[in-house]
């Protein structure tokens, strides 16, 4: 039996600067994953943090990380050739099977695009499996948008709706929170929605989507919680009787609303 | 000749902040001002009206070095005042604590503060660069003594097991065994330390003064005894009749005189008053031609080194007598009363004196060793520097600092505590 607490020591292959506070780390490993799953990333001496897998390929995984604390700040100072530890992948991932043959709406806020990127890339590769596809992405400022260099390619496969809270020089697109773009979505029915972002954004977007007629059972959210073990033992991520690490991080809005202890992400929705 | 003023703004390698001004004119030292410019902390003021069971907690915070001594003196005063019984065993354990904390304090002073003066190093850090082993040894002794104090006191600084009446926790035979074992391990190191410090060349300066220490006529007591000076013997309770305190305008620390005379307390005073050193310690000292009583001020350091050996032996004997201690309740017999606790702190005699009404302290007087010594320091300096008036400022400064440091003054202590009416 392999010790699930023991990380695999792996080198960083490449570091890609995304924005002023976010970098993508390409980690050399052969782990296989489903879009939406995450790994526990160790920086020895600094601790562990759950990080979504934002992409992967032959012998590597991408982790897109925003520097907010101990582990994340430290890894931002690391370079190709440095070693980190990873455990995983953990979590259920996005319900892609369910979305096949349907319309797909992807809603991301800020760093929330990271766990959704593998979905977007899947769509690009297997466009024929879905009907209409829309990616709705909001960031605080244009300079904080992730993966801008990919947008041109993604646009070929889906409707790309972008918005920022505060414009900067040269920004010609939409300004406003994500919810202000929701009426631009061209498909209403038969749509699976995948959403990840700050709690407040998920909450208001859920409300607006429900108003627009998207049924809660077809809206999926990825929750963020404090996690120490990733395997449902340490207890920190528990919310309303489920473990976000093991039963999630992706839950249908319908289910999240029925948790006894309502997650903050959906508090007020349907009230 | 024009008047010369030599000033040391801040004397380093002593505990606390103090300055020194020497005024020289006509080939003589006119005035020496040993000023303490730390702000006052008013311990005696706010300790007033506190309940008896918190007093030792507060007085333990008077100084960061002699916490053990302050707590024990304070508890002793409380116990005396309120008639709290202390089992003999607890008394002995307290003595053991005092001994390990004494050695700790002496070693700190000898290696870290005094030694650099005698080997022409700027600091212990510089010594560490050339002689790592020596510094390691010093740390090893410190660590061992701290460990011993902590065995009995919970921790070495601000012990947390002392309460009026005894201790809060069980002190097991294993802990006592460990204490003894550690002390045995330590003993050769203390002898080596004495060897080192007895060889040093100390300033030859001699001076007559009163020496004051606890005295019991058979040992070098730390915990119990009468107060004896060169010319008087009196009980702890009578201290007020003999030790008179006063304030000088240039210093925030109070001073005191014994029957109008300045006096010295501390290691040298202890050995001068109590000619009862253990044979091993005595022989060691004599090997280097050092004998007590002595009038040489700088021999304070030598006395400390000899004391270490003496007390280590003393502790080993004591530890054999001590039994396991079981905590027990011993409530005060009365809530009003007056009590004095005098013990020997590493730097010398320490007196706590409380009066209680209804379990609350109404009158508090604490006299710390450094407060007792300051007048003596000043006068010693004056005498010593008088022989050096023609030397350069640098030499005078250095010699002055040597003398001051020999006393191992603890300035913070002397300021924190001042008498209330």
């Amino acid at each position, binding site marked *: 039996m392999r010790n699930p607490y023991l990380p695999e020591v792996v080198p960083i292959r490449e570091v890609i600067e995304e924005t002023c506070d976010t970098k993508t780390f390409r980690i050399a490993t052969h782990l296989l994953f489903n879009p939406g799953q995450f790994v526990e990333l160790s920086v020895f*001496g*600094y601790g562990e943090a759950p990080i979504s897998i934002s992409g992967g390929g032959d012998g590597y995984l991408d982790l897109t990380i925003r520097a907010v604390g*101990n582990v994340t*700040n*430290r890894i931002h100072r690391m370079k190709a050739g440095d070693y980190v530890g990873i455990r995983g992948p953990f979590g259920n991932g996005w319900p892609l099977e369910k979305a096949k043959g349907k319309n797909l709406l992807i809603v991301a806020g800020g760093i929330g695009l990271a766990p959704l990127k593998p979905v977007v890339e899947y769509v690009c590769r297997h466009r024929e499996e879905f009907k209409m596809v829309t990616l709705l992405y909001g960031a605080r400022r244009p300079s904080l948008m992730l993966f801008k260099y990919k947008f041109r390619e993604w646009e070929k496969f889906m409707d790309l709706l972008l918005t920022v809270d505060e414009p900067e020089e040269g920004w010609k697109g939409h300004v406003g929170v994500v919810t202000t773009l929701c009426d631009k979505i061209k498909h209403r029915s038969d749509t699976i929605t995948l959403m990840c972002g700050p709690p407040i954004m998920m909450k208001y977007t859920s409300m607006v989507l429900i108003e627009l007629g998207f049924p809660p059972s077809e809206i999926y959210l990825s929750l963020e919680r404090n996690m120490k073990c990733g395997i449902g033992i340490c207890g920190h991520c528990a919310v309303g009787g489920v473990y976000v690490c093991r039963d999630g991080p992706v839950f249908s809005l319908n289910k999240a609303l029925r948790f006894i202890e309502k997650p903050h992400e959906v508090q007020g929705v349907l009230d | 000749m024009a008047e010369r003023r030599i000033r040391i703004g*801040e004397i*380093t*390698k*002593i505990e606390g902040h103090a300055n020194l001004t020497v005024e020289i004119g006509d080939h003589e030292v006119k005035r020496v001002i040993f000023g303490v*410019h*730390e*702000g*006052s*902390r*008013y311990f*005696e*003021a*706010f300790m007033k009206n*506190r*309940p008896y069971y*918190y007093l030792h907690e*507060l007085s333990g*915070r008077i100084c*960061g*070095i002699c916490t053990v001594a302050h707590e024990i003196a304070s508890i002793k005063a409380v116990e005396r005042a309120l008639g709290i019984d202390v089992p003999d065993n607890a008394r002995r354990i307290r003595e053991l604590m005092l001994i390990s904390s004494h050695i700790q304090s002496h070693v*700190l002073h000898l290696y*870290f*503060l005094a030694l*650099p003066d005698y080997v022409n190093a*700027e*600091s*212990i*850090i510089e010594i560490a660069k050339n002689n*790592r082993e020596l*510094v390691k040894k010093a*740390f*090893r002794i*410190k*660590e061992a003594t*701290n460990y011993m104090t902590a065995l009995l006191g*919970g*921790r*070495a*600084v*601000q012990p*947390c*097991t002392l*309460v009026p009446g005894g*201790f*809060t*926790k*069980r002190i097991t035979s294993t802990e006592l065994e460990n204490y003894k074992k550690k002390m045995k391990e330590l003993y050769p190191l203390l002898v080596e330390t004495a060897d080192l410090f007895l060889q040093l060349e100390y300033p030859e300066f001699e001076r007559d003064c009163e020496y004051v220490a606890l005295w019991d006529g058979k040992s070098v007591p730390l915990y119990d005894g009468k107060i004896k000076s060169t010319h008087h013997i009196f009980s702890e309770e009578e201290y007020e009749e003999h030790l008179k305190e006063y*304030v000088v305008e*240039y*210093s925030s620390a109070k001073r005191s005189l014994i029957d109008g005379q300045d006096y010295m307390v501390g290691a040298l005073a202890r050995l001068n008053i109590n000619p009862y050193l253990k044979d091993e310690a005595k022989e060691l000292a004599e090997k280097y031609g050092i004998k007590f009583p002595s009038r040489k001020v700088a021999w304070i350091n030598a006395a400390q080194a000899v004391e270490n050996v003496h007390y280590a032996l003393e502790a080993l004997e004591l530890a054999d007598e001590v039994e396991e201690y079981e*905590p027990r309740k011993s409530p005060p017999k009365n809530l009003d009363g007056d009590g004095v606790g005098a013990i020997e702190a590493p730097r010398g005699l320490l007196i706590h004196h409380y009066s209680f009404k209804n379990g609350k302290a109404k009158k508090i007087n604490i006299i710390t060793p450094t407060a007792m010594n300051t007048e003596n320091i000043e006068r010693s300096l004056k005498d010593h520097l008088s022989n050096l008036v023609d030397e350069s400022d640098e030499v005078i400064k250095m010699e002055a600092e040597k003398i001051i440091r020999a006393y191992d003054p603890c300035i913070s202590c002397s300021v924190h505590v*001042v*008498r*209330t*009416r």
Partner: protein
Amino acid sequence: MEFLNLEAQILDLLKYLGIKNFRLAKEINEMPVDIAFVEGTPTNREEIIKLLKIRKGSHILVALGSCASTGGVPALVNTLRKREAMDVYDGEPPEIPIDPKPLDYYVDVDYRLYGCPFSKDELIELITDIIIGKNYRDKEYSVCVECSLRENGCLLEQGLLCLGPITRGGCNALCTANGKPCLGCRGPYEDANIKAHIKVLLDMGFSKEEVMEALSLFSYEKFKEVIAWLKEE
């Protein structure tokens, strides 16, 4: 002072740090420094100025011990009226006293090591964190947590006045493990439910005075308001 009590570790430590300014152990004192550890709290104007200078000359300023981080025992003097305090010098103090305050009353403080004495383990943790560039965080839980981890019995249950439930952990429950109730030398933590604990103590039969005494002992500066509230009640 406690620095020298690091003993074994200190020589190890010197490999990574140079001590520039350590008045007690060393004579020549230099500025600027990377880390300044300040113990105690200013007691006169000169010291305030010195503190400001230290702040200016140092990258990181650490408040070491109770006095520096919460005001500690000396702050007890703030319970008195000025006149009473000055009585100590028979009414003629060499200088008008200033109120002891925590260092952050005067300057920005980067880190605090609470406790009287502060915990060696925490000091090592802080230094390590600074060296390797990790965030050192104040403990946001009670002494009870550490008491429970040591699995020794609870003194409050035995009827002693223990401030553990509202006192910031980090000391590894040293006092309580030695049979002495916690006197709150580390001050309250942010989340502490102080009023509820006071109620517990009163319900246990302690008098208001006893509770106030205990609260003011080490952290008068931090409990001032609660004590005032308790007096009112």
